[in-house]
């Protein structure tokens, strides 16, 4: 009895290890194994459930995180899409509050560079979090979220007398039932609205943003930020691997690439003042993405360590 269980467990572990490869396809083989003995599903669930709890293991501080998206693609050029796989994993697997509650850092969700995660809130609202970002939610305040740093797309369910509030930096973004993207980078906040209406700092600036509008606000600005046009189709474009820019500093583009795809791009001092206009597709072949960026910004790209450097 003992022996049988251990054997089944060893097989379950083999399946689990193989399935962690985003290119795993042998689901029929797995089904056949499950069908061999109706105890197999329970053995697998126990092991897979433990494995999911390991999501709470802290990752080492090593900069290895960038390799998550990079390395497999480099070694398997024939495999269609690592990015697609990562997106798929983010969409299917990682819905939710995996490290919530029991681990002290109550409601703090931190993503690795290149990791995309979706969180569904109790009220049905949803937050899609880009990589290298920190979002805090509070189970006692279901209509509140804080974007500590990085980027997230909010899809908020409207409630008549209970607006959803997103805090970032010193600013408050109050939605009136909507979808919008927020980026918090060094002392600066960008908001772009794709549906509905949001109010930016209703107690202070009270800027009203409808779909197709956005703002870029710097911390400490005296005046309310100016409302700008944004292309609704491209709001939160990071989710589908499409980044569109119109005269954006290269350093900002580099930061977006790091967040969205885990790519390390540095900008040489002589290229610092260049800006970028155009669209970048996060290609499975990251060198192509970099080549596009270099060609469109008038720079040269070279490999540097795990990443690239752009020079003039």
């Amino acid at each position, binding site marked *: 009895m003992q022996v049988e269980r251990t054997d089944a467990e060893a097989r379950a572990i083999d399946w689990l290890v193989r*399935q962690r490869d985003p290119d795993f*396809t042998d689901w029929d083989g797995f089904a056949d194994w499950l069908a061999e003995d109706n105890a197999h599903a329970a053995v697998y669930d126990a092991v897979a459930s433990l494995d999911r709890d390991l999501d709470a293991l802290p990752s*080492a501080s090593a900069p290895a995180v960038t390799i998550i998206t990079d390395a497999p693609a480099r070694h398997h050029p024939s495999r269609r899409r690592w990015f*697609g796989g990562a997106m798929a994993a983010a969409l*299917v697997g990682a819905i939710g509050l995996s490290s919530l*509650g*029991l681990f002290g850092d109550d409601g703090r969700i931190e993503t690795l560079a290149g990791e995309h995660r979706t969180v569904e809130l109790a009220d049905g609202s949803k937050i899609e979090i880009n990589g290298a970002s920190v979002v805090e939610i509070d189970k006692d305040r279901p209509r509140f979220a804080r974007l500590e740093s990085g980027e997230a797309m909010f899809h908020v369910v409207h409630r008549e007398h209970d607006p959803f509030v997103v805090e970032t930096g010193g600013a408050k973004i109050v939605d009136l039932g909507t979808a919008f993207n927020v980026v918090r980078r060094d002392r600066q906040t960008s908001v772009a609205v794709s549906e509905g209406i949001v109010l930016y700092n209703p107690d202070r600036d009270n800027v009203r943003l409808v779909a197709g509008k956005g703002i*870029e606000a710097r911390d400490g600005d005296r005046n309310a930020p100016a409302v700008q046009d944004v292309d609704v189709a491209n709001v939160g474009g990071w989710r589908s691997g499409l980044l*569109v820019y119109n005269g954006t500093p290269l350093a900002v583009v580099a930061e977006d690439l790091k967040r969205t795809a885990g790519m390390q791009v540095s900008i040489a001092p002589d290229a610092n003042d260049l800006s970028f206009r155009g669209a970048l597709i996060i290609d499975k072949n990251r060198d192509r993405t970099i080549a596009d960026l270099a060609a469109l910004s008038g720079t040269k790209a070279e490999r540097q360590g795990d990443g690239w450097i752009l020079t003039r």
Partner: protein
Amino acid sequence: MAFQSKQSMTDSHDRTDAAQGIEGVLLANRDRIVRFLEVRGAGDGAEDLFQDLWMRLTDRRMGPIADPLPYVMRAANNLMLDRYRSARQRELRDKAWGEASATQSPSSECALISREQLALVESAIAATGERPARIFRRFRVEGIHQRDIASEMGVSLSTVEADLRKVYAKLAEIRRQFDAG
């Protein structure tokens, strides 16, 4: 992301097509998916769960998916694991197994082990030896491909596989102790 231009994209990522693609795959492989759900533990509930899976997958905005069938099967597998975890969560809460769990709403996403247990898991991983622990960390925490771990550590792929099995077996054993205690 920074501000966008008005230009329209020639290479558009058409989400409608992607959603239709998923529906097509769900329909074309209905029997296969239902059979998978059955053997995966759904039994007679497999048809209902197929509907749940349909909702999960078609309700969501998503980019194009290169290889949709494995994606759908993975989603089906995750659906079953989520159900298992929700049930387990209720069970643990009913047993008042820890004071923290009493305040948790049942959700497949809450961790099922406590902080203390996680610390035990970490030391159990370390106790399997330096190489297995490192390989496991690279694989499970940092998401590195087995082949890449083998080449960076200068060992064979089968060594990596064996080490991963060893660590997982150890963790499964620890889990049984948690359950028994």
